């Protein structure tokens, strides 16, 4: 679990656990001043030992000195080393026997373990060095495991001497190595003050050592290791990779992965269960009509219909009006109403069979089990003459007949004659009783549908034709008609098939919006709005166009090439005034003559090149050079076949696309041109 973060000014109860906002600084991972390079600081000297400036052979500062004639003494480093419980550290130091007799003086390294409240728990000692032959220093090593309950340890050097020996012994160069936590894992702080108190406005200096405490205004926090149990879930039962072959007999077994499955019946198999559809649930039991009795299950066990003094039956046939079999049952104010064709009986039902009793009986019958519904204070049911009710008089079980159904009796009776079993319900949100008679009859007629979008056409060119998609509904389609707008003049609609007939020639360009309606023999219909655009500029291939005077920037027209393939030739004619001829086919500019004219021809004091440059600049268009026109050009002759200045360009048409676009750019006033896009010549294109 995650602990809450410490909050200032918050009421904490004893036992509350928090984690700090600012974690304490990690504890040391090495002893401080273990080599006495900083003198005696961070050391606690004990016994007769004291700090000296002794330097041993090899340059080691062995600054803990036990003088002669003293029994023992030592020095303990003040660095608190936090080690996880069960983990090891290794401490080493160097011992210098000096001139001592072997065995007369000794020295060793020690590890002292403390609790969080600084109580010494245990001391581990390293190997004793009791010989310093040759004046050499010898190491003492201690490997120590953190005991349970220890919060930290300190390492130190201990020296010892026989009482009458008068030579000193030294120790130094303390080092530690091992598993240091830095901070204890899962460090948290627990409120340990005796009563609830508020935390301070600012965060306390959290102690990094387990068991240590800090006072935070009225709260005292103690560092703890929050223990956690991590659970890993793993499945005991796993189904197999493929579906098993299911047994078809009840009780049959099949193994599916690590699961063994047994086939069970979904039915109530108790032989005393009547298994009729006249069912009511009350008093933690299931009641089921069974001819002249009503059986009921054991309390809260609908599978059990046999246990004595729990399951059983109501002897309706032995009571008043019980001659006819049970046909319907309902619940009214916690009591069970049992109907037959003649009358009803009102039974008090209870979890205890001995407490069940007949309360009342009246000669109002019903044979429609599903038409019974409690509505407000009444019970509505369907009698042979229509909807009737039972109402309760205040404070007694004296039932009386109601007649809310009488206004619709004739209608209900009519439905009862030719209908299957009706169903009823009470709809509380609307305060309504619904009595529903399903009956076989023709399903509602489905209307027809129309869809599609007619293609556009070209003025004065035969339309391709288009057949709208018609889907008949219940009845066959009888007609398609235009009910709003109008078709383009020249196009005709086949009213029987919904087809715009091919070959019709549009007689006026423009956009034509219209609504088509498809109707079927039932008079049902569907509408579709569509629009056909009749283009204005299409001309036939091989037909020439000419222009004279003014500007032509651009003149654009479409040319119908037909679906054939082959070489298509553009014949064009222009004089000094520059014109540019572009043919676009299948979205690609297949012919671009560039500007053709006389660039040096001066008109009005400027050459045509200068005039073209000025025009392009003024319109933000790139500059274009004028190519020299055919000098054989005869002024005034617009006949492409007779004028010797006619020029030619061509492209090979290889797709069945019919339409090409011709654009002629004549930016300068007074221009004149003739152009003609020929029909595809298969012989030239496919030699």
């Amino acid at each position, binding site marked *: 679990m995650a602990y809450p973060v410490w909050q200032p000014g918050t009421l904490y109860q004893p036992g509350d656990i928090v984690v700090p906002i600012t974690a304490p600084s990690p504890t040391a991972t090495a002893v401080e001043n273990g080599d006495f390079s900083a003198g005696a600081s961070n050391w606690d000297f004990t016994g007769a030992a004291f700090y000296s400036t002794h330097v041993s052979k090899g340059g080691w500062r062995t600054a803990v000195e036990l003088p002669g004639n003293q029994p023992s003494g030592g020095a303990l480093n003040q660095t608190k080393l936090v080690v996880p419980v069960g983990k090891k550290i290794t401490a080493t130091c160097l011992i210098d026997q000096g001139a001592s007799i072997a065995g007369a003086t000794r020295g060793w390294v020690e590890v002292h373990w403390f609790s969080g409240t600084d109580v010494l728990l245990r001391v581990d000692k390293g190997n004793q060095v009791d010989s310093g032959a040759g004046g050499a220093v010898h190491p003492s090593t201690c490997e120590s495991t953190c005991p349970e309950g220890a919060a930290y340890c300190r390492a130190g050097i201990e020296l010892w001497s026989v009482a009458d020996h008068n030579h000193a012994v030294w120790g130094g160069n303390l080092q530690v190595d091992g598993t240091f936590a830095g901070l204890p894992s899962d460090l948290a702080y627990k409120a340990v003050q005796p009563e609830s108190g508020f935390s301070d406005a600012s965060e306390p200096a959290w102690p990094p050592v387990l068991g240590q405490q800090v006072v935070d205004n009225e709260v005292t926090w103690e560092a703890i290791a929050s223990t956690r149990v991590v659970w890993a879930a793993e499945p005991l039962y796993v189904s197999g990779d493929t579906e098993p072959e299911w047994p078809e007999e009840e009780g049959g077994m099949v193994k599916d992965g690590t699961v063994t499955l047994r086939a069970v019946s979904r039915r109530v198999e108790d032989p005393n269960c009547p298994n009729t559809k006249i069912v009511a649930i009350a008093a933690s039991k299931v009641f089921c009509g069974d001819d002249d009795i009503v059986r009921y299950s054991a309390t809260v066990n609908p599978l059990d219909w046999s246990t004595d003094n729990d399951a059983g039956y109501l002897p309706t046939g032995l009571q008043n009006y019980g001659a006819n079999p049970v046909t319907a049952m309902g619940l009214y104010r916690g009591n069970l109403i049992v109907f037959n064709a003649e009358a009803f009986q009102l039974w008090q039902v209870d979890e205890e069979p001995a407490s069940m009793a007949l309360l009342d009986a009246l000669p109002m019958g019903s044979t429609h089990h599903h038409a019974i519904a409690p509505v407000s204070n009444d019970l509505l049911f369907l009698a042979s003459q229509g909807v009737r009710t039972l109402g309760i008089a205040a404070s007694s079980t004296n039932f009386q007949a109601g007649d809310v159904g009488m206004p619709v009796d004739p209608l209900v009776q009519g439905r009862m004659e030719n209908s299957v079993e009706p169903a009823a319900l009470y709809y509380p949100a609307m*305060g*309504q009783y619904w009595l529903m*008679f*399903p009956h076989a009859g023709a399903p509602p007629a489905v209307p027809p549908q129309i869809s599609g979008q007619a293609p556009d056409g070209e003025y004065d060119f035969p339309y391709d034709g288009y057949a709208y998609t018609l889907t008949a509904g219940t009845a066959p389609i009888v007609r398609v008609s235009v009910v709003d707008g109008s078709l383009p003049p020249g196009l005709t609609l086949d009213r029987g098939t919904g087809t715009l007939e091919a070959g019709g020639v549009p007689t006026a360009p423009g956009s034509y919006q219209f609504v088509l309606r498809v109707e079927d023999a039932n008079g049902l219909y569907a509408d579709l709005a569509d629009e056909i655009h009749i283009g204005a500029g299409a001309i036939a291939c091989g037909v020439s166009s000419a222009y004279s005077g003014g500007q032509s920037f651009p003149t654009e027209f479409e040319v119908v090439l037909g679906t054939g393939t082959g070489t298509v030739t553009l014949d064009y004619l222009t004089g000094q005034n520059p014109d540019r001829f572009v043919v676009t086919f299948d979205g690609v500019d297949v012919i671009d003559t560039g500007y053709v004219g006389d660039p040096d021809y001066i008109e009005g004091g400027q050459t045509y090149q200068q005039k073209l440059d000025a025009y392009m600049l003024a319109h933000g268009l790139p500059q274009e050079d004028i190519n020299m026109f055919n000098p054989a050009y005869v002024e005034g002759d617009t006949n492409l076949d007779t004028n010797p200045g006619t020029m030619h360009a061509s492209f090979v048409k290889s797709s069945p696309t019919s339409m090409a676009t011709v654009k002629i750019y004549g930016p300068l006033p007074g221009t004149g041109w003739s152009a003609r896009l020929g029909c595809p010549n298969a012989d030239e294109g496919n030699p």
Partner: protein
Amino acid sequence: MTTHAFIYSMTRIGQVGAWSRYEFPFDVDDWTIAGDALYLRSGDHIHRVDPEALGDEVAPGEVQPFPGLVQWPWLDFGQPGVTKMLYGFDVVGEGAVSVSLGIDQRSAGLFTPPYTVPADTVPGNVIPMPLAAPSLSVRLTYDGTQAWQWNALGLYLQDLRGMS
């Protein structure tokens, strides 16, 4: 397959209720109530009853309003056979309503032309409707384009008997 439903709606006035009929263009196989909503099952379709829906969906997506008609039998408003003078009327309800009065109980079709008035005519003057007849049948027609409800109708009459 269709389902014909007779629906009895209780009112706030004690045991008084009213019947209405609906024709659903599907079989209702089963039903359930979840929250305040009623759901009807028909095969693989679940329908939710919308109390706010107006009109009759005669074709998928095509809803047509249907008029609501409230008509009283020929009422004598006093002694039978004596001609009464009607000055006007007031009606209280919701939704604009057309009012028409039958003036000859021998002729079921002899009604005044329908006269559309606001849903509640009580504030302001009486809606004038001068006519005289020994018995009257009031017919209120709500056109079905808005939710409607009839609460009350008041006729202002003067008995033309002598000494009355």
